């Protein structure tokens, strides 16, 4: 579906006309991310991150395909093959560091994209399906990133695999057999490394497929916008191209600047020294930490230290960690407020910023050793995390009195400009 005033694709060249009859691919692109897609005119820079996430995935797939030409998924030589890439392969160091830091860039961009959605209520009707598919993409990304981190077969790779697959052994009765099945052995070794490589190569293409569904679902209601008010008429929108292609071009420039600074100037800043030690099943690093993008979830995992009811602490941690992501699937129904944008939700807005702070605290605790005060901080922060989504949000959306809202996107834009003009003359 699209708005009735959307530009129509009109091929000029005979070849394009012929192609449009046989395989209307250019038409598809034109309607998806070209002049045929009307977009609210008032999007701010937070709406850049969807396109940037797509760019990050493209970077990961391209560098990854190249790396796979040189990498050897065998426990005996995996570590050395990565160093061979770093030392001997032409431009190998660049490609490997780009892939390594590209993963971090992907998560930075996706986290901003998710929090954009949380602030502006992008998960609400009529865009629930867009949000649900987004959470699926996030889960697939986490699985892909975890398996990718195992491939260099350093100490953190090995012990990360040991710890993460250890989650499954928390499940009563079937846990241990499931873990052994996942690993194809009793500890991470060749079998696990090979299947992780296979899946690490496969999943990004699955992600790309789900992204197509994500965009498809988005195009049915059209993009949301900072006011949260739905598009009413033609005045409210501009065609995606050239307006937002130009803005995304600029966003891409800034994204690449950060990416290049990480890759070339501090490529190991977000990594861990222990992963430059070859995997050694007989010696555990003093302090096992996952990559930064897992820190908040790792903190939740470790916050549960008490056997409560018939469930032991380890299983509580594993359940809570998965629940912390799974509850995002229910978000469109947990928040019943008809107002989307937090700009008009005074109470929710406060809790939103508290959640941002909370996730940072969880991240900090996940990075730190399991000592006080980090343990109690992670426990308090985990309490807020669950309370925010499962208790506070449903209550707030019931009792909150939204602030007055403009009637349309155009009215909001004009009011903003009138304000700016009066401020300038004053």
């Amino acid at each position, binding site marked *: 579906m699209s708005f009735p005033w959307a530009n129509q694709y009109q091929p000029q060249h005979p070849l394009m006309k012929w192609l449009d009859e046989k395989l209307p691919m250019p038409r598809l692109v034109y309607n998806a991310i070209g002049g045929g897609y009307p977009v609210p005119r008032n999007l701010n820079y937070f709406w850049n991150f969807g396109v940037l996430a797509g760019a990050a995935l493209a970077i990961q797939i391209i560098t990854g395909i190249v790396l796979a030409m040189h990498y050897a998924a065998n426990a005996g030589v995996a570590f050395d093959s990565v*160093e061979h890439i770093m030392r001997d392969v032409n431009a190998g160091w660049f490609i490997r560091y780009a892939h390594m830091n590209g993963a971090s860039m992907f998560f930075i961009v996706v986290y901003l994209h998710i929090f954009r959605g949380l602030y502006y209520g992008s998960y609400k009707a009529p865009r629930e399906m867009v949000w649900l598919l987004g959470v699926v993409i996030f889960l697939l990304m986490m699985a892909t990133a975890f398996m990718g981190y195992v491939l260099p077969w350093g100490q953190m790779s090995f012990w990360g695999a040991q710890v993460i697959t250890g989650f499954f052994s928390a499940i009563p009765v079937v846990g241990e057999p499931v873990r052994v099945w996942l690993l194809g052995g009793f500890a991470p070794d060749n079998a696990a490394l090979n299947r992780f490589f296979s899946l690490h190569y496969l999943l990004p293409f699955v992600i790309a497929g789900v992204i197509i569904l994500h965009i498809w679902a988005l195009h049915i209601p059209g993009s949301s916008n900072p006011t949260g008010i739905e598009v009413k008429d033609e005045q409210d929108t501009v065609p995606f191209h050239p307006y937002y292609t130009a803005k995304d071009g600029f966003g891409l420039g800034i994204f690449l600047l950060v990416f290049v600074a990480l890759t070339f100037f501090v490529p190991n800043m977000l990594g861990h020294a222990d992963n430059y030690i070859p995997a050694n099943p007989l010696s555990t690093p003093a302090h096992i930490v996952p990559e930064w993008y897992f820190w908040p979830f790792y903190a939740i995992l470790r916050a549960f230290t008490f056997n409560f009811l018939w469930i032991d602490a380890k299983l509580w941690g594993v359940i809570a960690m998965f629940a912390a992501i799974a509850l995002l699937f229910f978000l469109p129904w947990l928040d019943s407020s008809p107002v989307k944008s937090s700009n008009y939700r005074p109470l929710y807005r406060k809790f939103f910023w508290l959640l941002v702070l909370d996730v940072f605290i969880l991240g900090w605790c996940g990075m730190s050793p399991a000592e006080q005060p980090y343990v109690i901080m992670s426990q308090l922060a985990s309490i807020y995390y669950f309370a925010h989504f499962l208790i506070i949000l449903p209550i707030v959306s019931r009792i909150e009195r939204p602030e007055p809202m403009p009637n349309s996107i155009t009215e909001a834009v004009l009011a903003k400009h009138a304000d700016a003009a009066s401020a300038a003359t004053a």
Partner: protein
Amino acid sequence: MVRPLGFLVGLGFIAALVLAILTTPLTNEPNASHEFHKHPKHLKLASDGLVPHWDKAQLQRGMQVYKEVCSACHSLNLVAFRNIQDLGYTEGQVKSFAKSYDNIPSINPDTGEPATRTGLPSDHFPAPYANEVAARAANNNALPPDLSLITKAREGGKDYIYSLLTGFQNPPANLPKELRPGTGLHYNPYFANLNLAMAPPLADGQVTYADGTKATVDQMASDVTAFLVWTAEPKLVKRVQVGWGAFIFLLIFSTLTYLSYRNIWADKEH
């Protein structure tokens, strides 16, 4: 339905967490070694920062220290003789340097028995021990780590390596008995648990530098650390140089795309 269920689930997690808080002691177990442990000293090298270069004279001295001191116990598996051309040696010098090693593992072509031969530029630095068991057996069950990546494989990087090499000292008088070095161990406050199996490897005048530099412990430690920064990342200088090119290109690109964006939106209020 979602909201009441979510409410109950939330309460469940919160109850488990509250009980966890109530049952977790708020104090950490005392760890006396923290108090004696020191943070690494900063070592300034030419390869630092945003305009790095290789100090080739220093790298050559550092390689000499590795060859004459460290290589007795530590391997350098990832570095090939051909790589040392980066340190300013000519192709011929590399060839004769490789040839000076006569213990490259090989196979006797007639009998198939393990044998040794002289080195070629394509060979890697030979390891001092045939395998891990041999290394442990010769070192009181401690394993001397491979040094190729050591400045990237330790928290604190080059500063840590330099501090460790220069940090051997007598234990302080107030050191608790359980933290004192046992037999075969040596006190070093920069090492994680204060006592390590490596004996102080460097002593003043231990090597004779061809360029006349005075071989103090500090000098040798700096030189060999500089060399190990190179072995860990031979492409470091090139990486930063290429990075500047890419960064400046993208600064211009971002400016252009910003102007282009402003242009296209010039007649549209938003």
